[in-house]
């Protein structure tokens, strides 16, 4: 049970890390055109 006192604060930290990663992905344009991959089959090359 005592491990919870470590894991819960850790999970809070992890949430912030994940939010940070998502921010990076968003700003680098990975979500700007999510249809692109689906349309790739229609392209010649």
């Amino acid at each position, binding site marked *: 049970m005592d491990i919870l006192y470590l894991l819960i604060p850790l999970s*809070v930290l992890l949430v912030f890390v994940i939010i940070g990663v998502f921010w990076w992905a968003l700003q680098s344009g990975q979500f700007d055109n999510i249809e692109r991959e689906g349309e790739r089959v229609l392209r010649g090359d």
Partner: protein
Amino acid sequence: MNKALAVPPVGPSPESLPAGEPVDDVFGAHRGPLTVTDDFTVLDDPVEQQEFTTYEPAAEASPGEAGVAQSVLLVQGMYCAACADTVECALQDLPGVESARVHAATRRLTLRWDPAQARLSDLAQAVGRTGYRLLPLQQALSISERLRETRMALWRLFVAGFCNMQVMMYAWPAYVAKPGEMPADLEQLLRWASWILSVPVVTFASGPFFRNAWRDLRLGHVGMDTPVSIGILVTFLVSTAATFDPSGPWGHEVWFDSLTMFVFFLLGGRYLEHKARDRTAGALDTLMNRLPEVCDRQAAEGRFETVSVRRLSVGDVVRVSAGQAFPGDGAILSDSATVDEALLTGESHPVTRSAGESVVAGSFNLAGPVLMRVDRLGRDTRFAQIVALMEKASTDKPRLAVLADRIAAPFLVIVLLSALFAGWYWWQIDHSKALAVAVAVLIVTCPCALSLATPAAMLTSAGALARRGTLVRRLQAFESLAGIDAVVFDKTGTLTHDRLELESVRAREGWTSAMVLSLAAELAQGSLHPVSRGIVAAAKLANPMEGAPSALGDCRELAGQGLQALRADGTVVRLGSASFCGLAADTANETPKAYLADADGWLATFELREGVREDARATVAALHDLGVQTWLLSGDRQAAAERVGREVGVGAVIAGATPERKLAELEALQAKGRRVAMVGDGLNDGPVLARAHTSFALGHAAALAQAQSDYIIQGGRLMDVVLTLRQARSTMRIVRQNLVWAALYNAVSIPMALVGWMPPWLAGLGMAGSSLLVIGNALRLAGSTRARA
């Protein structure tokens, strides 16, 4: 806009610009993609202004002044109908502003202002002080701005969603643990963790709600986001107090899970709404964003240089490569070009244009590079007229929307009061429930569904019709059209083509009609007279094999009389009026005739008639199927009108009508309680078109700005009348569904929240769901014209 558009004596003279810099340097930085700096000077650049502003010449009384300018701008930071009011109020009282209208669903502002008294940048700054931003439309539609908005929305949504997920997990033990089962310090730790993750949700993700509510508060309004913001703040503060002081006056209940969840739902609703609105606007955008930014202009010495379209001038020769759109209206200089004029017709058929023929701006060159001479540019092109028409329609407020907007504000005040009352009432019964009930009431109300119901549906329909080549001048026209039960057609140019068709041929003994026809066609092939073209077309139809070399020489056309030529044996053949051919006119009936004569006298008589449009009969039949009666109202002779009427199957024919008589007939129909739609060519029957409940103009000859009608059918298909009627009926059905849904939703959910049957998270879901349902229902209209076409 019935007045001609004039090139402006632009408002702020160069002297009024920052001193010391030549004009071009001030604006030079804005060439290429626009960037709007906070001082909005770009709005004053005369070259850029052409993109979103039209000028009307001054009234005759004051010839010295610049007249009135009309600009269409995009308002950033707008969420609801109340915002539209705020912007309008901010502008209304400024000097130089004649009128300002904001359309909530498209966030577009139509501003009429006097360039002599005001500068656009000052007006934009005044709006900026109320917390909104005015952007030139071109810029706002450009990718970077929209991208930033979408990214930010997605970012907020993710923060709210992810924190919400984690807060749920921390909340779970508290729900399942029996009293005393969980150590108090562990429970406290979970609360702290929930609090930490709620902070970004409240301070960052809920930002737009607070910003809007604060702005409304400062301006003394109640907006859509006011109740939501109060709900978020109160929940957060009470839960925070309970976390850090469990024995305090606020009890020890925490609501972090509900709080993060309804913020997530509300943001999710906003995000999807934003996407849907982009799609609605997208139908207009695909129409408007067709013109290329740059093109290849031929310089004096023959080489090509790439210049901005805004720097082109009339008379320039440009090269348009395959796949590019023509930058202006003009004439083809190359041998031929294959173009796609879906812009006008709604159908992507390749059309061939040979040298000297005209092409319109915004249509696409499909094959090979083509040289063209630019005849009309910018505001003068047909494309710009279409865009201006659509812009104007999209800022139009239909009657039902105005009504909904008027209800929204008092409705919100009532909501705030009832939340207060519910909180006070429950406080006396059950402390722990009072907060949840009050917050649920604040969150669950959805006036946005009410105010979006009408414009969302009508705009989607207008966009869908525009893609088929039918333009809607006023959104209100959907309501008028849906209710009609009679359609009155004009004859010439509406039910019939402008061109003539061959009806019968009589020939001299020994000649077959095919022989006289081919002889006449040989004579007529160089002529542009409608009779000649009718004969040539009939000959081609009878004998599609071309190539017999002409045996005639010295072919001449005598204007107003006919054609004559010399045969190989030296005798003269003539085609034309009776007197020209030296014959007595045949007066048996009044159809147009042409005579053929040679040295021996009469050879043949050709009777012609107006050709009925191919789809006229089907259109009239389809209208009858829809329960609509039809009339033919014509200024032509009784016999001709009746023949067309019979051929088309129209219900009743009124012939020989002068314009006054037409108006009187229309008024008589209306007096009998009929709701009448008039279909004409948009030019000749102005008063009649204007008097009818709603009206269609057919054909692309009419200058768009001068056409009097509510609907303009550019494709020249009569069947589009039926299609538009069906679309209008389904539009009004969707509008009614939306209004009923919005009213029912609010009528049911608010009492439920008041009696405490609705937890805050369900309230958030309900509100987001109800606006989405309204928008989604409206979007069904986008595909409906295609399915029926």
